[in-house]
């Protein structure tokens, strides 16, 4: 089993490196500052959501609400943007945390199945976002410093958003690897009964992962508003499934009990990279892949990964 997991994780890094090399060698502007910064900036939202999803999946659960919660947070942040980043950023994240708390209450408290509970939150968040925004996109206040976060880069290269995400990734990584909270998260997914019998604080860990995932979605929403200048109540559809796909591609199993935060990040970046490369290829004119083909390719990609994982898992499986 260890073989599978480290192979699964290693594979995503290898694939990422291979694709990067491919891009560097084949396309002129691939390695440019512009491409790098816009790629990282765009994908920072998906990466942070995927990290939250990774933790939830490690416990054997799932969070379908991250997309609409991000939309909700983007609206909240945009509405509060006149008060500047110092208010709007925490507010957006708080909206996410609140949604996460709602999930945690239903799942850890009422013992509702995560699928249905987060489905309900997903709808409620969408409703909330539409309500707060009065059904339209909410433009941010450009005169405040709110958009500074989404639109600025360090040394014209690394967007600030990706640096924030990096902090989140490191925090999540340390929690999982070096705290008993993190070990409990993994234990729950592996054998929830055993975790309880061993005296681990399982309820606390369950609450943590859903609140954390909500917070990540909130952060993504703030990035959305700050980077694109508007809070968008209808954005976010399908984000949760993209996050799940990133987690799976990164080698974390949906059954829980194992996983890697860095590999999930690689998985999210990998999906984004496939898109990026296709755009370049389009630009060369060798193929004319419309945007439509992109989702087909993503689906194919996921299929290949799944088949590979199924084959790798075969020897270890027993009736």
């Amino acid at each position, binding site marked *: *089993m*260890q*073989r599978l*997991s480290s192979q699964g994780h290693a594979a995503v890094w290898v694939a990422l490196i291979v694709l990067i090399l491919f891009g560097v060698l084949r396309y002129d502007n691939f390695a440019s500052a512009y491409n790098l910064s816009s790629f990282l900036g765009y994908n920072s939202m998906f990466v942070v959501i995927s990290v939250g999803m990774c933790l939830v999946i490690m416990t054997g659960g799932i969070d379908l609400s991250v997309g609409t919660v991000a939309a909700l947070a983007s609206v909240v942040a945009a509405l509060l943007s006149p008060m500047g980043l110092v208010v709007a950023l925490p507010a957006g994240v708080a909206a996410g945390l609140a949604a996460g708390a709602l999930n945690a209450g239903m799942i850890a408290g009422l013992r509702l199945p995560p699928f249905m509970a987060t489905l309900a939150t997903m709808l409620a968040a969408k409703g909330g976002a539409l309500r707060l925004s009065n059904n339209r996109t909410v433009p941010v206040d450009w005169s405040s410093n709110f958009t500074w976060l989404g639109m600025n880069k360090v040394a014209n290269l690394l967007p600030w958003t990706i640096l924030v995400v990096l902090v989140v990734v490191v925090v999540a990584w*340390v929690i999982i*690897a*070096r*705290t*008993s909270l993190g*070990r409990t998260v*993994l*234990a729950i*997914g*592996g*054998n929830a*009964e*055993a*975790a*309880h*019998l*061993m*005296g*681990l604080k399982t309820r606390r860990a369950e609450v943590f992962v859903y609140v954390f995932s909500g917070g990540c979605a909130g952060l993504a929403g703030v990035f959305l508003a700050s980077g694109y200048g508007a809070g968008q109540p209808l954005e976010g559809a399908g984000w949760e499934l993209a996050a799940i796909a990133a987690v799976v591609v990164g080698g974390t199993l949906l059954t*829980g*009990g*194992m996983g890697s935060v860095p590999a999930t990040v690689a998985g999210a970046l990998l999906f984004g990279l496939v898109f990026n490369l296709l755009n370049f290829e389009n630009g060369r004119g060798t193929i004319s892949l419309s945007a439509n083909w992109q989702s087909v390719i993503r689906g194919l990609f996921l299929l290949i990964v799944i088949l590979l994982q199924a084959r790798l898992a075969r020897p*270890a499986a*027993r*009736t």
Partner: protein
Amino acid sequence: MDDPLLQMSAITKSFGGIPALQDAMLTIAPGEVHSIVGQNGAGKSTLIKILTGVYRRDSGTVCWQGRDVDLRSPREAQEAGIATIYQELTLVPQRTVIENIVLGYEPRTRLGLIDWRVAEARTRTVLDRFGIDLDPHRALGSYPTAIQQLVAIGRAASMDAKLLIMDEPTSSLDEREVEVLFGVIRQLKAQGTSVIYVSHLLDEIFEICDVVTILRDGRTVGAARIAELTKLDLIAGMLGRSAEEIRKAGMTELAGSPRREGGAAVLKATGLSTDRRLRKLDLTLRAGEIVGLAGLLGSGRTEAARAIFGMDRLSGGQILIDGVPAAITSPRAAIAAGLAFLSEDRKTEGIIPDLSVRENLTLALLPRLSRMGVVDTTRERTIVAGFIKALGIKAAHMDQPIRELSGGNQQKVLLGRWLAIEPRLLILDEPTRGVDVGAKREIQAIIRERVEQGCAVLLISSEFEELIEGANDIVVMQEGRSISRLSNPGVTEDQLIHAMAAGPSAGGAA
């Protein structure tokens, strides 16, 4: 004795009105290896779970290190100094060996983060103590069950506990590993730690334990020093046997007409082995006869049944049906060949809880009950009505959801499922377990009836009367092997107990 480490008195516990413990007692001295024995349902597991905080007792006292305590969670028990190794693996297979050993008690650096280096060192100490050489960075689940078991034991032993509870710790260990385990237990004893050793393997109990407490039907019926007992005394205590009781106890309904001579063998198994604990099984089943499989818990009887019914892949040996080699690769194939299997665990392998009595009963019969995919419900109802009557199933009506029935009636429905397909060979795994006395006899009578009509039956039972009175032959199993065979008429309970307690060299060849 001086102050006991643990004293549990007058413990009672019921689940949903059904008593699991009625008057259980346990007294353990420091530095003592104490065994708890009893048959299935005697209450061992419940008593232990009360001690370890998983359950709360209904009444009685638990006195730990001289003080009355009420342990309300596994964590409290652990903090009090009681460590447990459960029978079902309670570690996390997806995590590495190191993680499992320190889970919940990870060593910390000054910053408060987990110090994996110290954790690894601690792990190596534990592994060295057990003489295990492996890579602790690999997932626990990638090692065989025996190693996983040793790791579980190592974890518990490393937790500075005053009392270590081991539930069937050697079930997947080989002889060398068992010796290592015993060495560790002796070490623990020398340093004043007590061990509760729950096992059905009497040889081990006699080798390593000092004291034994016997549980039967939820009560403590005796406690004695091992040195003062024989194996027979022990078994007799577990089963509640004495000469008078045997004479007084009601006979079963399984007694039948004299043995048929020379019936053709319906199924013959030679040298069967599987990856799942079955080492070598030889068995012949003839039409109109019952072959009983006897043995203590863990001897491999259910594994034998699973192998014959196609549930586990054979790693060796052969099955002949009507003299012709048969490859039974799945239950579906087994059913097509005329076999039927009533599992011992009706909850996980028997009933479909939301479906009705009728639907559960006819599940295996459906292909024969349908024409062009549509079920002939009229015929179905007639058949089910017939079985309800014949088996005495007490249900409001045949469309009642099966989960609302009592255990005994559920069992009858499941038996009906298999009788309905009119099998040539009926494999029954503990068919009367968890069933009240009246229903027990009804089920036994039905089995006898089928046998008289020509069905072959393989009967796995922990109830001696069923085997002694009903079976034409009894095959005794031990550690996955068929070790001896007793033939009726003339088998006595004493003989059977001897055969079960003895090693493979005693008794007749299978």
